[in-house]
């Protein structure tokens, strides 16, 4: 008896998930965004296995520098060193997919914790942390990131950590607002009355009720992370040559655009733009479905 009723509850939960999924699938923006993301994920996972040519060929295998697109079997031409642009853009997805989502997830994680504490305890805790956040947000994001990576080195871990810390205050604000509304409800009072600890109330009682804004925040943040990581790489605070990273490639090749060789810089730029747009399309759909 109990087991069957338990199943019923579980069925009902999966039903809600299914319904949300069904709603998502019916949105063209979600489908289109997912297709873009899926393409880049495929490139990132496949790496050299799916590229048409070797992205980092040995000296002897290099083509003629600045071969134009659609010539000599180079779909998007070659770059200033004679490497295949298409293959490099495809394999460059790997760095983005490693760094951006991890950074975003960490940022959302820290931000959620901070927001929970601020929204639940309020009072002076909220005041102090709130002013700190304001201070962090007042400094230009990219400037601190550059400073930190210059001081601490340019490894992936440093980039991930920096972006995560930069995102934390922004996420914290969103979560704080949601938690504040929840903490005023009587079930929280009731939990206090039976002697629950603050940690229990925050993690078991409140968190399950604020998952929607957190999930929405996460998808939005991943999009921003792609952008921030690429910017950092462009400015030199990220992967170093001969990495095929998009931001790095753009910074190496953009000077040639004025000389008429637009493709080595423009193609990775389009890659970044398409991925960010794809993620934002998906994020918008998720937000609409969760808030409906």
């Amino acid at each position, binding site marked *: *008896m*109990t087991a069957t*009723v*338990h199943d*019923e*509850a579980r069925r*009902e939960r999966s039903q809600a998930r299914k319904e949300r999924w069904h709603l998502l699938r019916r949105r063209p923006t979600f489908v289109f965004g997912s297709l873009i993301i899926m393409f880049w994920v495929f490139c990132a996972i496949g790496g050299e296995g799916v590229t048409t040519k070797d992205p980092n060929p040995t000296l002897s295998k290099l083509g003629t520098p600045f071969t134009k697109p659609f010539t000599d079997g180079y779909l998007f031409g070659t770059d200033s060193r004679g490497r295949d642009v298409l293959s490099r853009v495809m394999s460059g997805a790997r760095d983005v997919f490693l760094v951006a989502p991890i950074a975003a997830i960490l940022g959302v994680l820290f931000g959620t914790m901070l927001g929970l504490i601020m929204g639940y305890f309020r009072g002076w805790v909220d005041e102090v942390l709130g002013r700190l956040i304001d201070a962090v947000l007042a400094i230009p994001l990219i400037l601190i990131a550059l400073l930190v990576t210059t001081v601490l080195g340019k490894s992936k871990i440093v980039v991930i950590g920096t972006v995560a810390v930069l995102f934390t205050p922004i996420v914290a604000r969103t979560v704080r607002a949601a938690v504040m509304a929840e903490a005023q*409800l*009587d*079930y929280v*009072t*009731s939990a*206090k*009355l*039976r*002697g*629950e600890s603050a940690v229990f109330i925050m993690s078991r*009682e409140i968190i*399950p*009720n604020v998952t929607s804004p957190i999930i929405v925040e996460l998808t939005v943040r991943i999009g921003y992370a792609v952008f921030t990581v690429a910017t950092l790489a462009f400015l030199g605070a990220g992967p170093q040559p001969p990495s095929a990273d998009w931001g790095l490639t753009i910074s190496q090749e953009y000077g040639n655009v004025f000389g008429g060789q637009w493709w080595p810089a423009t193609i990775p730029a389009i890659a970044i733009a398409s991925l960010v747009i794809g993620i934002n399309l998906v994020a918008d759909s998720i937000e609409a479905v969760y808030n409906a």
Partner: protein
Amino acid sequence: MTLIDVTAESVSTAPALAVDNLEVAYMVRGIPRQVLRGVTFHVKPGEAYGLVGESGCGKSTTAFAALRYLPSNGVITGGKVMVAGDDVTAMTDKQLRQFRARDASMVYQDPGSALNPTLRIGKQVIESFTLLGDDKSTARDRALQALRRVRIADPESVMGRYPYQLSGGMQQRVIIAMALACDPSLLVLDEPTTGLDATVEAEVLDLVRTLRNESNAAILLIAHNLGVIRSMCDRVGVMYAGKIVEEARAQEVFDNPQHPYTDGLLKCLPRHGVRKNQRSLYTIPGTLPTIGANLPTCVFVDRCVLADDKCRTEAPPVVEVASEHSSRCHYPDKVSEIPDPVAGQSFDTSSEHRVVVRMEHVSKTFRQSGKSIPALVGIDLGLEDGETLGLVGESGSGKSTLAKALIGIHAPDSGGEMYLDDHEMPGMTTDRKSADKRAIQMVFQNPDSALNRNWTVRRILKRSVTKLTGVSGKEADERVNQLADVLRLTQRHLDLKPRQLSGGLKQRVAIARAFAGDPRVVVCDEPTSALDVSVQAAILNLLAELQGTNNTSYLFISHDLGVVRYLADRIAVMYLGRIMEVGTTDDIFGGPNHPYTEALLSAVPSVDGDGSERIRLDGEIPTPADPPSGCVFHPRCPRVIIGICDTDEPPVNEASLGHSIRCHIPTDELRVLQNIE
């Protein structure tokens, strides 16, 4: 000449609102679900017609349909609505706009959300006149006049204010002024006083009553409060599952109901001063059918005590039981034979009256931007074993603050003490011993807020059981099942989440949780105010039963004096953070009373229609940040003695043993003033 005569005559006889066989359905996921199943009633000009029934019966849908103001998924599938001779159902959009601007008005439940918070009152009132074609200065003059008409003393200054600067009662006056701007032939009032205090409610109802005499508008009043309907309406229609099941003159419906549903509704109410130890309250078995349900025969058949085979196979006709009194029932003559509920729980009144919790000189001062706001001032209160102490007073009087101080959510100011049995309790629940936490629990007003919507009922109860009693595993499961049994929750309910339960079931879960650790004291903060009367009756019965078996004490907060009278053994009356009067329920309802209690008691519109003279309370409860001098009640007191009340703190007079009144007027004088033998 003759032509004019004819029109004049036809206007005076034609109903201002004629709803004929109206059927409305809501589209839910593409499927039409029927809500109104043929509603028919007529309202004459100048007449007030009341619609009553539980939530979900279609009252509000009828009101909205009368103005064709249904939500976007609402469709009129049949019938007709005629207002002043025009068919509302056949109007074009443009005609409809004209009709709503000139012929009909509506007053909603929440005045706060009916006014635009960013615009000054003046602008909003003036707009309702410019819409009618007045130029700016005429509109302004007429707006001032309209505000004066709804008895706003200083309309010039009110027009310059924003909605948030007005009290709820004032806001509702402004809305009524706007609704009357076009001198409508139909005025729809949808729960106009729900959410207002009894004293303010009485004020608004008085106003509507006077305005009725000044205008010829037909009034359609929707209210779940039967007392309001009785005191306001000429005729009443009782709705159930989208049909009017009984219709008659107001007095007739309430004194001589001819439909089992009406009879049940009235018996659910604690009336005629009935008390918990006299009998339990009547409850209507079952629940309202869901919208769109297929009801081919009598709509009430599943919950009716009179139902037989005929009721299950044949739709009942509308029976004219007396002149202007009709009932949709096969057996209206059997209604009066429905027996009253059985005698209630016998309460052990001979218990030794041991005090469980005691508050001594408890004060609570909040600080807000440097200002101190005393929300509780010197509260002395004790609660005996197995006793219910009712706590009444207008909103803002400090009832909830007192409750929260007792349960340890607001720490009282230093100097005050709280005792459980004979040991002192720390102010905050976090500092209290687990036995103390277990001893004092709470049932909240709104179960939606009080139950975690992501937890199953089983998890909610089990967590409370393990946390409060310390048992776990199988033992805890057993205890949860036991609790569920007592509260009449089934195993199925235990595995559902709160939103899958009805309001009454949710409140049962909340009560079960409060009782998880066999508490000594349960604080009930308006536990039934969000519920329908039949559900309220079931919950009150349950609370009484639990008290009888467990000897639990209740601190019972309610604005409904009928409910308090039913459940409470003693009553404390609060005003501005102070206890003005405390005594047994008989003391409070028998008098002599503090003038504030007197006003509160007389403000309640009664279902039984005893028309005692009402005492008007002017103004509103002052802010606790800046309490009046002397007696805090003196600016509103109808019996104020200037020279004493405004300068000196009143003494506490003992009217009889255990009945004390905080007033300058000696008790004997109060007795004379209030005509008490």
